[in-house]
C-alpha cells in the first residue's frame, strides 16, 4: 500500500510519500528519506519503529480530520485531498486578539447579553454569557472595542463558532 499527500496541522504542511510492504514503512517526509520503520499493531494502537525506540500511536478519523495521539499529545491533521493540493483555507481559525468579532466558545444557550451596538468597552469587559454543561462561560472583549452589532439574544441557542458580537474596525 502507498500513501502520498500533504497533512496540515497548526499552519504547518508536512508532505509525505510512503509505502508499507511486509510490515516496513519506507518513503519520504518533506522530501527527505525516512529510516525504514517497522509498523505493527499493538494492543492499544499502532507501533512505529521497533524495540526501545518504538512509538505507540492511537489514530482516529473525525469527519475531515485525522487525530493522532502520540507521546502524550494529540495531533490534529486536516485530511489531505489526494487529487489536488489545496491552499490552506485562510481565516477559518483566527488568532486571538485581532478578530473583528467575538464568537461563541461552545454550543449552548445565551443567558445574558451585556452590550449593545455602539457601546465602547475596555479589553476584558464581559460581552455576553453562554451556558452549557451547567457551566456559564463569559465571552469578553479581546481588546478595547466598539460594538458594531450584536447577533445574540438571551435564551437563544447558539452553535460553537457562531459570531455573537461584531466590532467596529
Amino acid at each position, binding site marked *: *500500500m*502507498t*500513501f502520498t*499527500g500533504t*497533512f496540515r*496541522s*497548526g499552519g*504547518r504542511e*508536512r508532505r509525505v510519500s*510512503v509505502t*508499507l510492504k511486509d510490515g516496513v*514503512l519506507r518513503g519520504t*517526509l518533506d522530501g527527505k528519506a*525516512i529510516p525504514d*520503520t517497522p*509498523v505493527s*499493531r*499493538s*494492543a*492499544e*494502537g*499502532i507501533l*512505529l*519503529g521497533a524495540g526501545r525506540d518504538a*512509538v*505507540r*500511536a*492511537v*489514530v*482516529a*478519523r*473525525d469527519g475531515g480530520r*485525522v*487525530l*493522532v*495521539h*502520540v*507521546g*502524550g*499529545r*494529540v*495531533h490534529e*491533521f486536516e*485530511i*489531505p485531498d*489526494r487529487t489536488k493540493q489545496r491552499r490552506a483555507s485562510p481565516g477559518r481559525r483566527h488568532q486571538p486578539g485581532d478578530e473583528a468579532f467575538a464568537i461563541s*466558545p*461552545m*454550543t*449552548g444557550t445565551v*443567558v445574558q447579553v451585556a452590550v449593545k451596538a455602539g457601546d465602547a468597552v475596555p479589553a476584558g469587559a464581559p460581552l455576553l*454569557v453562554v*451556558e*452549557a*454543561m*451547567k*457551566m*456559564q*462561560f463569559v465571552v469578553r472583549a479581546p481588546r478595547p472595542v466598539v460594538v458594531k452589532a450584536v447577533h445574540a439574544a438571551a435564551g437563544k441557542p447558539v452553535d*460553537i463558532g457562531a459570531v455573537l458580537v461584531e466590532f467596529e474596525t
Partner: protein
Amino acid sequence: MVPALTAGGIAGKRLLVANRGEIALRVVRTCRVLGVVSVAAHSEADAGMPFVEEADEAVCIGPGPARESYLSVARVVEAARNARVDAVHPGYGFLSENPDLAESVEQAGIAFVGPRAETLRRLGNKVLAKEAAEKAGVPVTRGSGSLRDAAHAAEEAARIGYPVLLKAAAGGGGRGMRIVESPKGMEAEFRTASAEAKAAFGKDDLFLEGLVRPARHLEVQVFGDGEGRVVALGERECSVQRRHQKIVEEAPSPAVDASLRARLCSSAKALAEAARYRGAGTVEFLLGPEGRFQFLEMNCRLQVEHPVTEQVYGVDLVAAQIRLALGGGMPDFPSGEPRGWSVECRVCAEDPAREFAPSMGRIAALEAPTAPWVRWDGGFAAGDEIGPHYDSLLGKLVAWGDTRAEAVDRARDALGRLAILGPRTNIDFLGAILSHPRFREGRLSTSFLEEEFPGPWRPEEGDGGDAAVLAAACALMQEGPTGGRSAASPWTSLPGWRAGAREGP
C-alpha cells in the same frame, strides 16, 4: 461468584441507577459483582451510552435537558415504581442530595441509597448544617443565614468582612459559588450565582461565608449505619481547584499527620453520629495556614473523588452503600492509618487553551491505560457524543503508590497514555499540574491554580511530529484511494482507527 461478595441476602434484588456517565457505570458494574439487578434510568440523549448498555435493564426517563430527566423527582420515582426496584442509587450531583427524592422513594417502599430525607434537609442545607456542626462541637467559619436578595447579601457581607464567598445552600461542585472581593461586585455575582444554583440544583437559595485565604480543602469520608454508629476513613485533600471545581484530589493529605487526622476524623464523626447518619458522606473542612481547621459543609452523598479513599483504605464504598441500603448490613471497615498514597485526576471535555470552555463532539477514539495501581473510572466509549446538556467529566484517572511521589509519577505516566480523540480535553493540563514543583512538594492551597496557572493555558503545540504524520499516513492508507476501508488491507483493522460509528461489542 465469590460468596463473601453476595453475602447478606442482597443477590437478586433490583436497583435503579438514577444518574449517568462514569458514576452510573461504576454503580452498574458494582451491582453485577454483588449479584444485584441494575436498571439504568437514562435520558433520550444518553441511549446507547455504556452505562445504559451494560445495565441489566434500562428505562428512558425523558429528554436530554437534565431538568426534564435526571433532575425530575417525579420521573425518577415513576421509573423506580414501574421497574419494581428495591433501591434507588442517585450517584452524585443531580438529585443525589434532594430530600424530596429520598422521601418519595421511601414512601413508595423503596430504599434510598443515601441518608434519610430529614438528614438531607438538615445537613444538605449548608446553613442548617453549620448550626448542627456547631452544636456537635465542630469549629465553623463565620457566615450568614439564607439571603433574600443582593442588598441583603451586601449588608451581611459588610458585617462578615470582605472577601466573602457566595454559596448555594443546596450546592456542590462549585456551582452557584462566587468570591466577592468588594461591595461593588456583589450585585452581578449574586445574579450569576443564583442563576447557576437554579440551573444546577433547582433552588436558588444563597448564603455567605467569610473567605479563609490561603486555605487547604480537606474532607473526611464517613460511613454510618443510620443508627448512630459511624466510621471515619481518613481525609482527602482537594485543594487543586479551578473556579471551586476540584480537579486533582489525593489521599492522604501531605499537610495532615496522624494527630491532625485523628482530630479531623473525630470532628467528622461527632457531626455524623449526632445526625445518626446513614451511608456514605463527606465532611468538608478548610485548613488555615496556622493548622486550625473549620467546618465548611457536609456532602450527603458519594463524592466524585471517593476512589482515592478506596485505594488507601482498601474498601469499596459503592458496594458498601448498596449492601447497607438493601439490608445487607454495615461492612467491616478497616481501622487505622491509610496505606500508601492515591491521586485522582478529573479528565474533562474542555479546552484549556480557550479558558476551559466545554468542548463537545463525538469521541473518535478512547484508549485508557491499564497497569497495576492505575484505575480508570470512565463513562464513555468511542462513538459517544459529548453534548451540551451535562457536566464535562469524561472520567477519573486514579493511581496508587507506596509514597506520594510514586503515586504522582504513576498518575503522570498514565495520563500520557490516556488517548481521547475528538473533543479537546484537559489531559495535558493535568499532566502539567502533576509536574509542577509546588504540587510535587505538596505546598497546596485552594488558590494554587490561580497563582501558578493564571489565564488560559496552552499545551506545547501538537505540531504534527514525524511519528504522528507517519501514523496518520498509515491509517489513511487503509482507506484506499476512494476513502472507506480497503478490503485488501494487510491488517484488517487498526485498533483505535474507527472511521465510522462505534463498533459492536
